[in-house]
């Protein structure tokens, strides 16, 4: 016969050290951000797809000159910057919750999150740098690849 402990026996209260310190509005703001950024991203992304792929000559117009021409205007710089930042934060936060939901071992969770945040930083820094330091008329390039306003200067 095996003996099992009386289920009514007094048991030490489960230590829940993390519980009391994890209250706060952080997750609330995260949740609201996901909804808000999602709505804005729908507009930004479909606007982006339409302008790049459908409007004017459509998909055949895309080349270095097309992209350079777009980024010469502050409107598209801000549009793309917003899209980059919102999409990256939205996506990173989404993957973070997925890691929290599915990674059971602490070490795995830590490693996954570390690589996630690293990827976030690399993409956001690089992308922002490109948007702001982009030179639409690099010196010494063949003129037929450049946007039209390069030659007029």
């Amino acid at each position: 016969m095996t003996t099992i402990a009386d289920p009514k026996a007094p048991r030490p209260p489960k230590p829940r050290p993390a519980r009391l310190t994890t209250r706060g509005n952080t997750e609330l703001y995260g949740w609201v951000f996901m909804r808000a950024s999602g709505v804005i991203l729908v507009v930004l992304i479909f606007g982006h797809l339409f302008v790049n792929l459908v409007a004017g000559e459509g998909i055949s117009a895309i080349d270095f000159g097309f992209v350079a021409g777009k980024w010469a205007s502050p409107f598209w710089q801000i549009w793309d910057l917003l899209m980059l930042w919102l999409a990256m934060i939205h996506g990173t936060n989404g993957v973070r919750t997925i890691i929290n939901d599915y990674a059971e071992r602490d070490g795995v969770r830590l490693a996954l999150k570390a690589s996630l945040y690293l990827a976030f930083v690399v993409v956001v820094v690089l992308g922002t740098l490109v948007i702001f330091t982009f030179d639409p008329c690099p010196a010494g390039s063949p003129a037929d690849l450049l946007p039209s306003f390069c030659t007029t200067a």
Partner: protein
Amino acid sequence: MTATLDAPSAAPVIPSFDVTLKIRRFLPDDGAGAPEPYWDEFTVRAHGTDRVLDALHKVKWEEDGSLTFRRSCAHGVCGSDAMRINGRNRLACKTLLKDLDPSKPIIIEPIKGLPVIKDLVVDMEPFFASYREIMPFLITTGNEPTKERLQSAEQRERFDDTTKCILCAACTSSCPVFWTDGQYFGPAAIVNAHRFIFDSRDEGGAQRLEILNDKEGVWRCRTTFNCTEACPRGIEVTKAIQEVKRAMITRAF
């Protein structure tokens, strides 16, 4: 079944059939190595009106007395016998065998996410710990009234759905977020917080929202609706969770 005894001639014949139960069993550690869960099969003769609980009784009383499960009321009131039947959390006492396709073995497992003590009995302590944390009692301030605390029918209606909970843990143990590490408060705790947060007589709403506005609180809900589907009382669990979320957002902004 009493009705058929009263009028044996008039009652239609209720068919009997053989049903196979495939039960996940587990013996607690007796010091002789780590115990492994295993599957056991029993075939019993069941009546057309029998429930899974009746079949389990038949196994326990006639075939294998060591089969262990909880049940108290046997009528869907106490919430003791939530188990995973054919992959869904249900009360054994509310699930008719004939609704489950008895031609195939009926798979019965303990509810997931809570430590198994023996066979179908799980340790409910983590579940009740979360329940206690949301303070499931009326909180008021000021002087005690000399008569009842009155409430209109509409005010009562506001939280009627969540008063029906019997704390069976079918919802919490159907939640994939709870399965991972068991830190999430779980739907049942939120349902019972909802029952007081939206009670016009209660004044502890802000405190309860504060407690659930936690890293492991309502924001871990992914709206998978597993809980609503599992609830044997038909409570719209996911809706209750969303109402608590909304209360928090309107409080914060």
